[in-house]
């Protein structure tokens, strides 16, 4: 089984943004630039998450999906604010291969079943965001951790698969954006309780963290954001960002948190391969 390494691009309006734990969003640039860069450097899939998910900004998300799917020939998952079968159909028609459902699936679990029967289970990924309480208990939440649900994320994962989810993505809200490493316990308990693949998300600060969540967390795939984005920013000509705001932050080319080691996809995959974890090597992707 080949472990997938998946860049996750958080999108607000026309921009790629990165949420920093407790600090809000920063604009990093145009998602298409990053998508192309990751495609050419050996990404196994891409995930676009609309972090604001306001309906009036839907057109710009659909445009981004269309432009991406026309020239990037790896699977594209799109999530964020998908509430109805029509919302799901719209992003699939724009060119997404899979959709990620979180809030709407918790509010109305039948949506997962309806979507799976209409578009196929493998098209429906259920995204679970979880926080860890100080007593070690976990709780599922929505809206990037802003809303608590009282739901046990482990029970919810099993139920989501019964309802028709073809894949589960689990995000540790506490670790997200911190670079402190994945929540291994959270990931492992979910990965061991379901038969479908599990994508771990939130907290990667270095390639070793990715290895840990695969070996100890039993993840089938990993979604990476900061660690790759900061690596990507170093390679892009500064002038591309001149008109996109937040220039000082972008051109400073600093990592905002010392815990994050900017890495390339090749660095991550090399680390996995060295440890004997199977993954599709960057050298065998056919990308120049």
């Amino acid at each position: 089984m080949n472990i997938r390494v998946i860049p996750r691009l958080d999108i607000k309006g026309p921009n790629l943004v990165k949420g920093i734990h407790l600090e809000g969003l920063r604009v990093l640039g145009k998602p298409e630039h990053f998508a192309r860069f990751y495609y050419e450097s050996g990404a196994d899939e891409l995930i676009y998450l609309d972090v604001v998910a306001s309906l009036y900004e839907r057109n710009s998300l659909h445009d981004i999906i269309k432009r991406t799917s026309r020239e990037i020939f790896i699977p594209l998952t799109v999530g964020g604010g998908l509430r109805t079968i029509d919302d799901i159909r719209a992003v699939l028609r724009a060119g997404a291969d899979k959709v990620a459902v979180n809030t709407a699936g918790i509010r109305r679990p039948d949506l997962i079943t309806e979507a799976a029967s209409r578009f196929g289970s493998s098209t429906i990924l259920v995204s679970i965001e979880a926080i860890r309480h100080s007593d070690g208990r976990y709780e599922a939440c929505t809206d990037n951790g802003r809303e608590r649900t009282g739901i046990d994320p482990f029970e919810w994962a099993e139920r989501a698969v019964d309802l028709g989810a073809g894949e589960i993505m689990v995000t540790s809200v506490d670790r997200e954006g911190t670079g402190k490493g994945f929540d291994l316990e959270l990931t492992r308990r979910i990965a061991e309780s379901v038969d479908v693949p599990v994508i771990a998300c939130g907290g990667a600060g270095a390639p070793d963290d990715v290895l840990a969540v695969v070996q100890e967390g039993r993840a089938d795939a990993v979604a990476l954001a900061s660690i790759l984005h900061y690596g990507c920013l170093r390679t892009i000509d500064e002038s591309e960002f001149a008109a996109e705001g937040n220039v000082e932050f972008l051109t400073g080319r600093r990592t905002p948190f010392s815990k994050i080691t900017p890495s390339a996809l090749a660095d991550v995959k090399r680390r996995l391969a060295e440890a004997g974890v199977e993954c599709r090597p960057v050298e065998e992707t056919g990308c120049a």
Partner: protein
Amino acid sequence: MPNTPRIAVVDYGMGNLYSVCHACRHVGLGAFVTGDPEEVFRAGAVILPGVGAFGDAMATLRSLGMVEALRNYAATGKLLFGICLGLQLLMERSYEFGEHEGLGLIPGEVVRFPDAVMGVRKIKVPQIGWNRVKEARPGAWVGTPLEPLRDGVYQYFVHSYIVRPALEDFVVARTVYGDVAFCSAAAAGNIFACQFHPERSGPQGIQIYKQFAALVSS
């Protein structure tokens, strides 16, 4: 590519046809999406894509009058390219949620992934991700869209069921998942089909479309 035949991408309401069309256009093939059996029968070449359940897919194909159209089309000797569920539909029958009759264009059946393990880990079904595609025997890829590719090339898979062609001759490529080796591409005469998604398999998937375009134009 001048005078390239138009490619009909069969639309029967199952799955994402857009990436298939984008890949066709990327290699210069004029592709159009159609659910009209008459257009399919008259097309220069046909792609049968698909994601979803076998039984639903056959029911829809039947209601569109597409089953006969595809059988008649295949009998003309023009190229038919099946992808993912499109490979499985070519078989005689499937055991996905009951037993269903398929198009029967390649003798064989569709079965669920047997329980398999890899080391201490039970493998996950569906298989979602990249895996190596290996030539079933020396020369098996000659004359197929796989011909220019290196043996063992990575392609992208999403599936819970696998095909078992009745004869070894129909098996073009094999892939190993956990400890299960399965048929990842099959061919019979003018029909070629693969379990993986070349349109989602990066530059090496696009190469398959390029070779398909070359075969269609020759």
